[in-house]
């Protein structure tokens, strides 16, 4: 039994200009003890995926229009909001994008951790405080007993990020979703946080979905990687396989963009163009406008998901039956 199965999920949002579909038929699954990396440029639908799993879309004028999201064999799309509230923070926790703003400025950080915990667990306040301080200490927060009584504005970014992680971990969830948890932090703190995630997953045997656009973090931390582009999963597989032998042109382009030490000046690569906005996704393969290997078929037909060797799945005509070099 997989911890979480996301099966062919599409999401639509009602906007003033009509209905848009930022996610179209994405699938992946994650087991306990596994770290899955969700990677892609801004606008590729990573955060929407997280919000869909958390059941937050109704609050944002969106909904899952088709597909299934199953968490420990329970269909999350079939349950009521009341039942969802018991799952959020208790079984699945979301660590949202920006630690600087995900804490309420008027409460002491400790109280916010305790609040999240007591939402789900019947526990005396004193015990909850002890447990929160223990979690904080285990996350490497120095002087946890003091930090507990401080307000968010009194803490550094790295500390705030740890507090937010502590909020997510305090109720012992089975699945943690971290939405770009290291983006706002400097590199040394980033490394510590990544290490923290690795340890936490190993110790507690939980699943972690790591949303990031930092391929360094992915290769360092994750077991599997899901590459997203414009609301599609374009490639997924074991991290080592995908990074060693990227198949989809987008994955290849992403990997080329990583700067390396000792690169000659002005040789930093970028992918030409931008991710199309959700209302203007092109027909055919959504990547064809930026793809160096584009053929006529890419403009007209959406590629199917293909099983390549090594357990990699890729969505590109290049590996399909209709691809002929001479076209």
């Amino acid at each position, binding site marked *: 039994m997989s911890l979480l199965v996301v099966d062919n999920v599409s999401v639509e949002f009602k906007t003033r200009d009509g209905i848009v579909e930022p996610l179209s038929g994405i699938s992946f699954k994650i087991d306990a003890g596994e770290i899955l990396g969700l990677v892609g440029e801004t606008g590729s639908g990573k955060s929407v995926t997280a919000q869909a799993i958390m059941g937050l879309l109704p609050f944002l004028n969106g909904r899952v229009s088709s597909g299934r999201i199953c968490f420990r064999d329970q269909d999350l799309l079939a349950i009521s909001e009341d039942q969802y509230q018991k799952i959020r923070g208790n079984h699945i926790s979301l660590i949202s994008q920006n630690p600087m703003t995900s804490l309420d400025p008027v409460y002491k950080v400790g109280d916010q951790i305790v*609040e999240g915990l007591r939402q789900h667990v019947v526990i005396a306040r004193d015990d909850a405080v002890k447990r929160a301080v223990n979690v904080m200490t285990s996350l490497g927060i120095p002087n946890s007993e003091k930090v507990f009584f401080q307000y968010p504005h009194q803490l550094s970014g790295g500390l705030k990020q740890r507090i937010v992680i502590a909020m997510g971990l305090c109720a012992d969830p089975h699945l943690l979703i971290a939405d770009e948890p290291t983006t706002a932090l400097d590199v040394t703190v980033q490394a510590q946080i990544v290490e923290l995630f690795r340890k936490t997953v190993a110790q507690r045997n939980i699943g972690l979905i790591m949303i990031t656009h930092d391929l360094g973090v992915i290769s360092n931390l994750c077991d599997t990687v899901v590459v997203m582009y414009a609301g599609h999963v374009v490639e997924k597989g074991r991290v080592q396989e995908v990074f060693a032998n990227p198949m989809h042109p987008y994955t290849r382009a992403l990997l080329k963009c990583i700067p390396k030490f000792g690169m000659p000046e002005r040789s930093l690569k970028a992918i030409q163009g931008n991710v199309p906005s959700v209302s203007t996704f092109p027909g055919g393969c959504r990547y064809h406008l930026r793809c160096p290997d584009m053929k006529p078929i890419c403009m007209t037909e959406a590629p199917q998901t293909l099983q390549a060797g090594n357990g990699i799945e890729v969505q590109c005509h290049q590996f399909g039956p209709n691809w002929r070099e001479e076209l």
Partner: protein
Amino acid sequence: MENTTNQNQIIPPANRWIRRLKKLKNNRAGVLGLIIIAGLIITALFADYIAPYSYKAQDLSLMNIPPSMDHIMGTDEFGRDVFSRIILGSRISVYVGVVSVGLSVLIGSLLGALAGYYEGWLDRVLSTVTDLTWSLPEILVALLLVAVVGAGVECVIIAIALTYWAQYARLIRGQILMLKNEIYVEATRSLGATDFTILFKHLFPNAIAPVIVAATIGIGQAIVLEATLGFLGMGAQPPLPSWGAMMSNGTAYLFISPWVIIFPGLAMMITVFGFNLFGDVLVDIMDIREDTLK
């Protein structure tokens, strides 16, 4: 998880109110406001002990006496001690100001918060009601109430509460509309919080500061309004000494005994001034972000 690093008790740091009050030392206007408000409240609470005479003791041999050692603010046309009446009148002013604005803040912030949080049809209905209320003149509402239930302090309070809440509703609604897109709201929701928790535990405390400032200024306005209605004969009924009613009665003797008007007017001016200064102080005191860790 059960490690043993924290066997010792976890104790919160000392109360920060002392630190906040210390901060006030540099804010002279604020201290003045605080002194005025404190003085007013003490006066209202202990009016019976402070007033040298009864507010209704008439002495027709002592009509319209100018300020002297016996009657430091003179006497009115019935020979009643003006000073004693002003002291007693502070009760009515504080009562009307605090209760009416308290009620308006309660109504206004509740409706405003619901409108801002849920938006949609609820917001449209509530906002329309708010706008309609906003357009009602307080004095007309008071007149209407007087016609229905008769004149009195309670009538003034209800009239003010029924008209003032609109401004607080608008303030809170705007704040909530802005704050509900904060990431900590999503973060709280991902921890499994209910709408109720999010709205009243997280959004409300963040949104309330400007309302409290507006409310202190509103108390000043309410006191003036009470005096206006008292002046028109709609507020506290004789012999209760409301400042507005005192001034109203004094107009007949304006050139014989001007002190009957001047002193209640001064008392009101100082009170309103005090509440306005106090509003600024509250902002400083309440903003936890200004607390420094020293």
